[in-house]
């Protein structure tokens, strides 16, 4: 193997893994505050289509990114209102958000699908994704605000009793997660495969969700996990192209399988489970308890 080939492989791994890092790190922060948002796939698709349409209409990448982010803020804002104020079931609401996002993006993008666009260099976002993991890790574990987010996620009643605004904190983390997912979508339709086609995220939102569990809610592990998932996928392609026979279906299910194994591992021990998962995850918060 020569050095050029290896650099080429790394290059492809970087490009294909970045959307997982964005969506995953956003969801990690949301879950750290005790909210499970299963709507990533929908958020990504709407982010992707909004970015694409804006780019077609204005030809400006900055506007395109801006409106993509706005779509994430609006959709995740709706999700936050439903689960925080109306206290709807988080799992059902998240699934509804995904289904809604798939349909909405297909409807919005119908007229624009198949318009050639000028793609954007993925390297800006690859760099930002590494920085982001560092910042999120610093924020969660080294700042007071990060401590509040974790406190709210571990025990919202105690956090509330201490005078922290649980609802406001969760609004912020949900919207942060929404923004990250929409950036992941933007990256897919503008940088990764510059096009819009229905359902083009092809399940990456679900892989990002699996990734958060795989990483046991730790930012750096999430980065490593994302590159393991991405790296394995690209390596199997390389081996195939060299002529090694591989069970391709197996590699398609690898991320989910690995996540289940991690889940089994961390839930086999109650203490380990407590140390890993935010204790208030998926539990609705009522103020007047």
């Amino acid at each position, binding site marked *: 193997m020569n050095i050029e080939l290896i650099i*080429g492989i790394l290059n492809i791994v970087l*490009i294909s893994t970045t959307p997982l890092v964005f969506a995953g790190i956003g969801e990690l922060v949301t879950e750290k505050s005790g909210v499970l948002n299963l709507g990533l796939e929908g958020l990504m698709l709407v982010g992707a289509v909004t970015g694409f349409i804006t780019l077609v209409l204005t030809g400006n990448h900055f506007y395109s990114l801006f409106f993509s982010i706005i779509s994430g803020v609006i959709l995740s804002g709706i999700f936050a209102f439903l689960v925080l104020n109306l206290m709807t079931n988080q799992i059902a609401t998240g699934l509804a958000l995904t289904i809604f996002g798939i349909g909405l993006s297909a409807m919005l993008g119908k007229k624009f699908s198949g318009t050639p666009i000028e793609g954007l260099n993925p390297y800006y976002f690859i760099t930002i994704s590494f920085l982001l993991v560092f910042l999120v890790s610093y924020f969660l574990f080294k700042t007071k605000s990060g401590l509040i987010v974790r406190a709210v996620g571990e025990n919202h009643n105690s956090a509330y009793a201490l005078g922290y605004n649980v609802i406001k904190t969760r609004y912020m983390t949900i919207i942060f997660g929404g923004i990250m997912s929409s950036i992941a979508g933007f990256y897919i339709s503008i940088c990764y*495969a*510059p096009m819009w*086609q229905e359902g083009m995220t*092809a399940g990456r939102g679900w892989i990002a969700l699996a990734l958060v569990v795989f990483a046991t809610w730790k930012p750096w592990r999430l980065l490593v996990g994302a590159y393991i998932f991405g790296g394995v996928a690209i390596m199997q392609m390389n081996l195939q192209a060299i002529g090694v*026979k591989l*069970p391709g*279906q197996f590699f398609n299910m690898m991320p989910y399988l690995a996540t289940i194994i991690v889940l089994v591992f961390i839930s086999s021990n109650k203490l380990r489970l407590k140390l890993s998962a935010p204790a208030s995850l998926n539990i609705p918060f009522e103020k007047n308890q």
Partner: protein
Amino acid sequence: MIRKILTILSFFTIISVSALHADQKKIGFIYIGPPGDHGWTYMHDQGRIYMENALGDAISTTYIENVPENADAVRAIRKLAASGHDLIFTTSFNYMDQTLEVAKEFPDVKFEHATGFKRMDNVSTYSARFYEGRTIIGHIAGKMTKTNTIGYIVSFPIPEVIRGINAFYLAAAKVNPDVKIKIIWNYSWYDPGKEADAANTLINQGADIIVQHTDSYAPCQAAEKAGVLAFGQASNQEAFCPNAHMTSIEDIWGPYYAAKAQAVVDGTWGSEDTWQGFKDGMVEMSPYNTKLLPLDLILEAKNMETAIENGTLHSFEGPIYNQAGELVVKEGEVADDGMLAGMMFYVQGIDGEVPQ
């Protein structure tokens, strides 16, 4: 009061609509992807639109998109059959058993299954001889490659796909015995990101021509970005990769769909197997890219099209050996349709094994 008025109004609307379309035939389609994929499903949808224009008010059409090739397909097909459709096109290979299952429940509804081989009294099968187009692009690729390495991105190991790989390789190796093809199985028809990854991986490994048997135009786009050549899939994809796109194999379903719908309207529909290629216009080549291809090569390709049409050239002319070195098609003979329909082996010269 208002509700009463609305009820009466809606009652009249239903009557008027059904009176207007009393003898209109309803025709349904099951799509594996979105009509906007600019590939496989897009071309079926173009066929549907052609049919609507050709038959006008005699028919009305419905389609269900993004139907997975599993038990969900049964529900989708049954939904169409139960809602009064007279003719249903199921447009992907792995809808085969699901189509038969529903066809048994609805003997009065006619079914047309694309690329399959199982038929019943009310189930026809139809397919296009895409491999004829693969012979043309194989010839072009064999002549145009400088690295003698061609990257080939494929979806699932089914006969149609493997037949395409073989036809492509036989034609390429005929004009360039040193040519090697590198194959990546994606196990999905449609995932633009993954298709782009596969294309980039192949280019990184030295391929200077990208061929695909998946449904999005991401591979062609990736080729454009990397400055190598590519062939489009199912529809003309030149707009997305003008400096890489040499030609595409286009699937032309419209005339067939219109003929079958007409047969249902006339009451002459019967179960049959249709497999057409260049000759009947079910497969066409997109305009050859004159910026990328030398004129004499374009001429050669066009002559090959004509030769295939009038039968003087066949994609699978003997002698053809399989990977084990056994003679599968004798010299002077061509592979028969039975062998082509069930082709699950690579011909000699292709590296790797067919996945099981």
